[in-house]
C-alpha cells in the first residue's frame, strides 16, 4: 500500500515497483482512504508520506497498526527535517525505515524486500 497525496509520486513509485512482479500493489491519496481500503484488504507493508490531508502519517500508522491492518511501515517524506520520533520508534520503525524524497527507489525496493 502506497499512501501519498501527490498522485504522480504515488504512480511513479507504483510503476517502479510493479516492474518487479513481486508485490500486489494498491494506493491511497489519504490516511482515511488507506484505512478504508485496508479494512477490505489488509497489507503486509505501507509506504507512507508524513504530510497528508486529514490525518497525518503518524496517526495513520498508529491507527492501522492498532487495527492490525498492516504489520510494517516505511516512511517516505519530503520533509527533510523529519527524524525518527519516539512515537514512530514505538511502532517498530528504525532509521532505515525512513526515506527522504527524492529517495533512491532501489533502496526502497531493497528495504521492502528485506522486511517482507
Amino acid at each position, binding site marked *: 500500500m502506497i499512501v501519498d497525496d*501527490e498522485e*504522480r*509520486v504515488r504512480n*511513479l*513509485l507504483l*510503476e*517502479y515497483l510493479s*516492474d*518487479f*512482479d513481486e508485490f500486489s500493489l494498491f494506493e491511497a491519496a489519504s490516511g482515511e482512504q488507506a484505512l478504508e481500503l485496508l479494512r477490505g484488504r489488509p497489507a503486509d507493508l505501507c509506504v507512507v508520506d508524513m504530510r497528508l490531508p486529514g490525518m497525518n502519517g503518524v496517526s495513520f500508522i498508529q491507527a492501522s497498526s492498532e487495527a492490525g491492518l498492516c504489520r510494517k511501515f516505511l516512511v517516505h517524506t*519530503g*520533509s*527533510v*527535517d523529519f*527524524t525518527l520520533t519516539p512515537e514512530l520508534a514505538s511502532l517498530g520503525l528504525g532509521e532505515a525505515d525512513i526515506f*527522504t*524524497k*527524492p*529517495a*533512491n*527507489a*532501489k533502496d526502497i525496493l531493497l528495504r521492502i524486500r528485506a522486511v517482507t
Partner: protein
Amino acid sequence: MMDTGALGKKTMSRRMLWRVALLSLGLALLFSSVQAWVTYRGELESVGNTLDEIRKTQARSITNALWDFNREQLAIQLEGLLNFAYISHVAVEYDGKTYAEAGVNTKEHVRTWSIPLAQTAHSGTFQLGHLHVTVDLAGIRKEAVAGIARNFLFMTMMVAVNSMVLFVLFERMVMRHITSIGEYFRKAASQPADLRLSLNRRPMDDELDTMVDAYNRLSQEREKAHARMHAALQEKEASEASFSLIFQMAPECITFVRLSDSVITMANAAFETITGHSARAAVGKDVHELDLWVRPEARQELLRQLKANGQVKVFEYLLRRKDGEERQVVASCQLVTVAGEQCYISVIHDITDQRKIQTMLIESEKMTSMGSLAAGIAHEINNPLGIVHQAVQNLILRTSPEQKKNREAAAAIGLDMDLLQQYLRSRKLDVFMRDIQDAALRASSIIRNMLNFSRRSESKRQLCDMRHIIEQAVFLASTDYDLKKSYDFKNIEIVKDMGAQPPLCRCTETEIEQVILNLLRNAAQAMATANPPTPNPRIDLRLRVVEQSVRIEVADNGPGMPPEIERRVFEPFFTTKPPGMGTGLGLSVSYFIITKGHSGRMWVTSEPGRGTSFFIELPVVREESANA
C-alpha cells in the same frame, strides 16, 4: 547687682573714677589756694584797719603819755597794743631814739608801719615822734595755710565721697547693662540662637531702652533677611549640587565649548569614557587641538546649523578617540550664554556599539528569515524533485534489457530490446537520463546540506577541546584533495596561536570541524584566486577565552572584501565564486551551525587589501554542568 571686681579692673567706671577724683582734687587744690590767698589779703587788710584804729584811738593817749614823759603810762599803752591780732612789737621813737617798746622784735617775716605821734596845742601842732608797729606776717601766713589745709581736707573728702557715689551710680545705671549687652553679643556670636537682647531692670524708656529696642528690631529684621538669604542660598546650593551631580554622573559626554575660539570650558567624567582624553586635560583646550573630529568639515556644518537654529537635535559624526580609534557618535547641541560668553552645550552619545548590535540583529534576523524561507522552499522543491528523480529511475529501469517485464512488453510490439539499447546509447539518451538523475541528486543534496543545520543533533554533543578540533580541521585541510581546487595548503603559512588550555565547549565535533575547515578552504581559495594572488599567503588561527566564551579567529592576509560583500557573506546562495565552484551555502550553513546549533556567535571583519577575519564564539560549559 554690682560687679565688685570692677574696681580692680581697667574698666570704664574705674577710669572715670580716677579722672573725676584727680580733676576734683586739682580743682580743690586750686580753690583752696585762691581762698588762702583771699584770706591772706583779708587779714592784711584787717591789719590795716587795726592800724587805722590804733591811729584813731590809741595814738592820742600814747602821744599824751609821751608828752608827759610818763613812761609807765606808755608801757601800759604799748602792752595794750600787743593785744591786737598779729602785732608782735611796738616801739615809740622820740627824738630818733627808742623811748619805749613792748613785744618781741624778730625782724623776720615782719612788716613795720610807722604812725606819727603829734601833739596839738594852742600854738600849733608839734611833731613828737613815731609809733612803730611791727606786724608778724608769718602768723598771718600760718593762719592762711591752716585754712587751706582745712578746706582742702574737707574738699578731698567731698571729692572722694562724690566720686564713689558717682562710680556706684554709673556702675548700676550704665556699666552693668553695657556689660550684659557685651555678654549677650559674645554669646550671640558663638551660638546664633534666637536670643533677644534684654536688660535686667524695669523698663524706663530711656536711652538704653531705646537702644535695646532699636537693636532688637534691627536684629529681627536682620534675622528675617538672613533666613531668607539662607534659604535662597541653600536652595541655590542644592540646585548647584544636584546639577553638578547630574553633570558628572551623566553617562553621556557633556561639554561646554566657547564659540569664539572653540575652547572646551567644561567637560564631565563621561568625556573620558567617550574620547579617551581626561576631562581635566581637555578643559581649556581647543577642540582642534584634541583632534576629535575625523572630518573637520562636519564640525563646520554643525556650527552652521547651530548658528542658524540655536540648536541641533541630532548630529551624527565620526569622533576620533585619543588612541586613534574612530567612533560613531551622535550629538545634541544647544547655544547658551555662560558668563557673558557664547558657548554651545554638546551632549555626545557613542552609538558605535549600538550600531554594531543593530547591524548584527538585522543580520541575524535576515539570516533567520532566510533560513526559514530556504527551508520552506526546500520543502516545496523536494516533492517535484522526488518526482523527477523517481521518473528518471523509472525510465532507466524500463529501458533496461535485463528487466523481464521490459522484454515482454517489447516482444509484444515486436521491438528488439538490444536494438533499443543501442539506439539509446548512440543518441546518448542514457547519458541524458543519468544527467537528469545526477542533477536531481545534486539539487537534493544541496537542499539537504542547506537544511541539515536546522536539525539539532543533541545526541552527538560532547565536551570538546577546541584546540583538538582546530588541529583536526587544519590536518583535514592539508590533506584535502580536490582536482578542481586551485589552491594548495602547502603554500600557505598556517600560524596557530592557541594560548593556554581553553575551557571545554559542548558541541558536535564534526560540525565545528566542518565550519573551520570551510573557513580554511575559503581563505585559501580567496588568496589563491585574488588578482594578483596574495604573495605570502598566511592564515592565523587564534584561540582566546573571552568572558564566558571561547573565541576562534580565522584570519587571512588575502584580498579582503568590500563592505557590500562583507554584509552578505552569510546569506544562503550568496557566492563570489565562479559557477560550479561554490554553492553559496558553506558560510550560511556554518553560520547556522554556530548560531542555531551551538548557541554561539559568528561574524566577520574585513579590510580590502589587508585580509579577512572570521570569528566564532562558543559558550563555555560551566564547571558544575561539565562534571555532571
